[in-house]
């Protein structure tokens, strides 16, 4: 880290060195945003604040995408995540009126929280330890098309999606349709009319929950 910072600070004037330094800069800024945002999501008590911190993380990830020449994905990340998903979160929070503070300390199972922290640390340490192993990057490169080379990133992604990944792509279309239908069914107002099947099922479940 220090060495790389040094290289950023002591950058010579050649264009390559500049690009190198800017890549590092983007990475560091993105990393800072990601970590800040993630910490915010975990630690802040108000769900609205959590959602806003999530946006910060998502922007950070988008930065890292750009840094790794995934331009198209960076755009999609901003549009879909920050533009749609987080808005949806916020909408639900506001709609339900649950934007009050959560008592993080209250916990029905005593061991849950320390174990969770321990688990998170252990997993992290393990992943880091694994990353020290140098011989595990394998596989056949450029299985579905090269990343580098001539052409736009968007063009290459599009080509891959509409040729080699056509079937999964069609299936995501089906998945989205199913999700839409499921959402409509789930959020239908149950109880009031009392004659639609989905509502009856939900009512049954809720009565069991309350009992």
């Amino acid at each position, binding site marked *: 880290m220090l060495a790389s910072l040094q290289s950023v600070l002591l950058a010579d004037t050649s264009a390559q060195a500049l*690009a190198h330094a800017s*890549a590092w800069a983007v*990475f560091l800024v993105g*990393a800072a945003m*990601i*970590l800040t945002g993630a*910490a915010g999501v*975990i630690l802040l008590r108000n*769900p609205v604040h*959590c959602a806003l911190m*999530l946006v910060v*993380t998502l922007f950070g*990830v988008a930065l*890292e*995408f750009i840094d*790794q020449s*995934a331009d*198209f994905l960076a755009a*999609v990340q901003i549009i879909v*995540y920050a533009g*749609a*998903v987080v808005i*949806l*979160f916020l909408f*639900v*929070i506001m709609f*339900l*009126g*649950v934007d009050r503070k959560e008592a993080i300390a209250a916990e029905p199972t005593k061991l849950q*929280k320390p174990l*969770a922290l321990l*688990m*998170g*640390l252990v997993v992290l340490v393990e*992943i880091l330890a694994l*990353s020290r192993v140098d011989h595990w*990057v394998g596989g056949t*490169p*450029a299985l*579905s*098309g090269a*990343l580098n080379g001539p052409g736009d990133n968007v063009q290459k*992604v599009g080509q*891959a*999606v509409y040729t*080699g*990944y056509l079937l999964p792509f069609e299936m*995501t279309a089906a*998945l*989205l349709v*199913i*999700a839409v239908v*499921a*959402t409509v069914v*789930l*959020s239908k107002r*149950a109880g009031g009319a009392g004659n639609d099947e989905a509502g009856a099922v939900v009512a049954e479940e809720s009565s*069991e*929950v*309350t009992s």
Partner: protein
Amino acid sequence: MSVPSAWYLVLAAILFGMGATGLLVRRNVLVMFMCIELMLNAVNLTFVTFARLLNDIGGQVDVLFVLVVAAAEVVVGLAIIVALFRRRAAATADDIHILKG
């Protein structure tokens, strides 16, 4: 020359670990959902990194699919939460435990 891949992978690991920990610690269902999004993003980051590392566009395409699935998941999940909150205001994940043995 750009940043070595290992940096991104470490960053993704940290993000993933934070997301997982948050999922286990928080009780608000909505926040738990956000933590899942954090974990998904961590995985996406690794996908993109490996795409660069292996010079394979497939990694980026996978991220696209993950985005779609995540969107669908959020939509359905939020719908469930809405249906849930209609019955019980201020519900947390711990209020639903009739499956207790």
